[in-house]
């Protein structure tokens, strides 16, 4: 007889927009990917490796979005990442010498050891193919990898059915290419759901997706178990809702874990602190001081950056362990209380987070997760980790509810992606989708140069649809870059469209776009018919 009172499903959404610029030898925004590799993706795999080696059973669900999978398996980015990692290893070796017998010796050694370990994983374990690492844990049944909309396209703001369908179908095909089987679950970009989306999920054999809590709570009829059990949409796809309590516990501005004074300070970075001549080789080729991802100070308290105190990795680990204990204790209490109300099944708590917040922003978040997995395995019996798929196998009968349109963005709907700062893009995005559908119907099953041009049109369309651009325009950072990316893809699409309808395709131009915007090599524009 199983003793657990309820289940916990931990879901990490890993995503970055497709940023790859072969036309430049060195490109600032590609760092987003390299930093996430060193600070989040490889460290997470390291946790899974450690747990497995120690015989700790665990369950975790991760969305690895199609753009991220494409970047992770792209030769150019792999090569540039190697350079990025090797540079940091080189610097960390010099730093061992420089910090010898100082209060920074511990933190310098931490970077040195971690960077070496991550290189060992990347090169020796996964042979430069980090997806192999994720696949390995999926095959072991510990990790459920789910897909996402093709380019993290924001579905409620797309008008044409074919456009929505294509975001799902292209994603499912890409998942099959990278993981050798069909996806069982999907993370709808920004958890943004609109009526009818579930029909396309079902067509691809997708069994479940995730929503913000009010997406299920505002559903019709009322969900009996609130957000503590999935519901089936009218199409029979399961919707799992996000638990607010565990989300707030980690990220609350007042009491959230990442603000502990003993944790690492994000803004005090060696890129600014080291002698210029010493650090210059590790900066971008323009020589401007920027963050290089090595930080030697702790948050300390509400003091100026120059008042920060040295970081001690072992202190920070202790804090991460106690935060993991606190998180687990609260989940035990939560499940205990829920099981007193919900008596005819075991309640499920779904904790959903952006993966990159673990490690990149909250540096010790990775250690927190490792401690949490271990504590759940060794220290208690009230909660059990489960994947959504396992839950559905255990409880195949669920209430049918029509969920409400919603997203996990600010205010809960489409405001972040549709406001006065970015509403101008939809005129172009929707027009391009309309034209894509027109082209696909006019030139079905085309081969040769025409077929290539049509496929490139599809790539430009999905790239302009990435929700990241509208998001960045709203939060006001990287606004210049996100505006340019939107315009570039619209322009490229429009140029190709005019060439195709004018029957004068410039093959050199086409080749150049195929080289620059090379996402989804296997894309088939016929999906838009």
């Amino acid at each position, binding site marked *: 007889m199983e003793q657990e009172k309820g289940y916990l499903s931990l879901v990490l959404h890993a995503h970055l927009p497709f940023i790859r610029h072969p036309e430049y030898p060195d490109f600032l925004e590609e760092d987003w990917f390299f930093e996430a590799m060193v600070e989040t993706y490889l460290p997470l795999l390291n946790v899974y490796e450690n747990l497995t080696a120690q015989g700790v059973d665990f369950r975790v669900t991760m969305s690895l979005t199609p753009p991220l999978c494409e970047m992770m398996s792209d030769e150019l980015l792999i090569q540039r990442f190697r350079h990025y990692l090797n540079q940091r290893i080189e610097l960390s070796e010099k730093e061992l010498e420089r910090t010898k017998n100082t209060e920074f010796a511990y933190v310098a050694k931490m970077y040195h050891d971690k960077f070496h370990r991550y290189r060992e994983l990347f090169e020796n374990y996964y042979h430069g193919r980090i997806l192999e690492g994720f696949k390995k844990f999926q095959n072991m049944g510990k990790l459920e990898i789910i897909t996402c909309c093709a380019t993290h396209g924001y579905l409620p703001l797309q008008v044409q059915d074919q456009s929505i369908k294509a975001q799902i179908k292209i994603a499912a095909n890409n998942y099959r290419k990278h993981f050798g089987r069909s996806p069982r679950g999907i993370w709808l970009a920004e958890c943004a759901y609109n009526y009818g989306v579930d029909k396309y999920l079902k067509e691809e054999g997708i069994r479940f997706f995730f929503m913000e809590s009010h997406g299920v709570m*505002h559903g019709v009829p009322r969900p009996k178990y609130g957000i503590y059990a999935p519901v089936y949409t009218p199409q029979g796809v399961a919707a799992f809702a996000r638990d*607010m309590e565990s989300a707030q516990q980690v990220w609350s501005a007042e009491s959230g874990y990442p603000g502990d004074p003993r944790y690492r300070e994000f803004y005090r970075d060696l890129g600014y602190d080291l002698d210029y001549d010493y650090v210059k080789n590790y900066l971008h080729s323009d020589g401007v001081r920027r963050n290089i991802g090595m930080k030697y100070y702790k948050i300390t308290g509400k003091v100026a950056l120059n008042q920060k105190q040295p970081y001690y990795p072992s202190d920070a680990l202790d804090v991460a362990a106690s935060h993991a204990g606190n998180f687990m204790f609260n989940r035990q209490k939560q499940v205990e*209380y829920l099981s007193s109300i919900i008596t005819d099944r075991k309640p499920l708590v779904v904790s959903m987070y952006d993966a990159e917040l673990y490690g990149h922003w909250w540096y010790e978040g990775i250690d927190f997760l490792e401690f949490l997995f271990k504590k759940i395995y060794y220290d208690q019996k009230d909660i059990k980790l489960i994947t959504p798929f396992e839950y559905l196998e255990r409880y195949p009968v669920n209430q049918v509810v029509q969920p409400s349109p919603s997203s996990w963005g600010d205010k*809960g*709907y489409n405001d972040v992606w549709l406001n006065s700062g970015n509403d101008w893009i939809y005129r172009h995005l929707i027009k391009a989708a309309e034209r894509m559908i027109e082209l696909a119907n006019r030139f079905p099953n085309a081969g040769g140069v025409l077929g290539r041009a049509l496929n490139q049109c599809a790539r430009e369309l999905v790239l302009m649809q990435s929700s990241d651009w509208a998001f960045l325009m709203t939060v006001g950072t990287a606004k210049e870059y996100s505006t340019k990316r939107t315009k570039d893809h619209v322009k490229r699409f429009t140029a190709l469209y005019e060439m195709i309808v004018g029957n004068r395709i410039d093959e050199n131009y086409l080749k150049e776009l195929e080289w620059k915007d090379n996402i989804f090599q296997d894309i088939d524009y016929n999906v838009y018919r």
Partner: protein
Amino acid sequence: MDEKLSSAAVIKIDTAAAREAQYDLPQSYGKTESFLLPKDPNWMFLFWEIVNETFEQIKDKKGQNVFDNARMVIRVYDITDKDFDGTNANSYFDVPVVLDARSWYLQVPSGRTYICDIGAILPNGEFIILTRSNKTTVPTGQISNIIDEKWMMVEGEYEKILKMSGADMFGTGASERLQHIFAQRWKAFEIGRDSNPSSHISSWGSHTLHKPQTDEDIWLKAACEIIIYGQASKNADVYIKGEKIDLNEDGGFYFRFPLNAGQNVDMPIKAQHKTKEEKQRFITIRAKREEA
């Protein structure tokens, strides 16, 4: 576009860049059409393009002066549960509109399905449609009253489930913190880069995505966006708050931006003759937001 984005790179003019540099985004696509998007339970966004031929065709049929005393409106139909044929809407209302605005935010009751016409109301009351949008449904934003008998819970117990599910927090910016963090995170990449503040007026004052005061069981939130639209003679340049703005071909302009907490808006609008600088016209718009 400038190539400063890759601050570390040698600028390389390739054929694609050269081709793309030749034109900015299309101002128009040469086709009369309109699209309706949902924003939240009470707001929708409508944008349109209406080409001259559309007006000409109507004039050919109805007479050259047909639009002379017409009022332009957006007609918003509630077509919930209807297979709309143009005549069987549950209800409709009209919103006066300047066609040059090319887009409009529309406030509507939640939980209903809508479709919009943009058209002209003639003095005799006749409505001439220029374009009809797609339809869209806005959510209710509420817990449903509909209960499935097979999936019922005792009322008192359900209150507990509601509370645990965070019913009092919905829509109050659950991931506001994440937004903030992401903004900060990307900010870190911006340091050290030449960043030209956008000169586009509509980006004044970025949205503050602030959480309502969750003081026990009462909270309030209210948001305000200000829309400024107008037209100036073709021989004039127009400045809002000292910044020159782009005018449409016929001198029209349209801006909207959020009014944030604790903000005063003092917005002088100036039209200045292109050559005779002493010839000027002024209008000032003032607004204030206070929280206590």
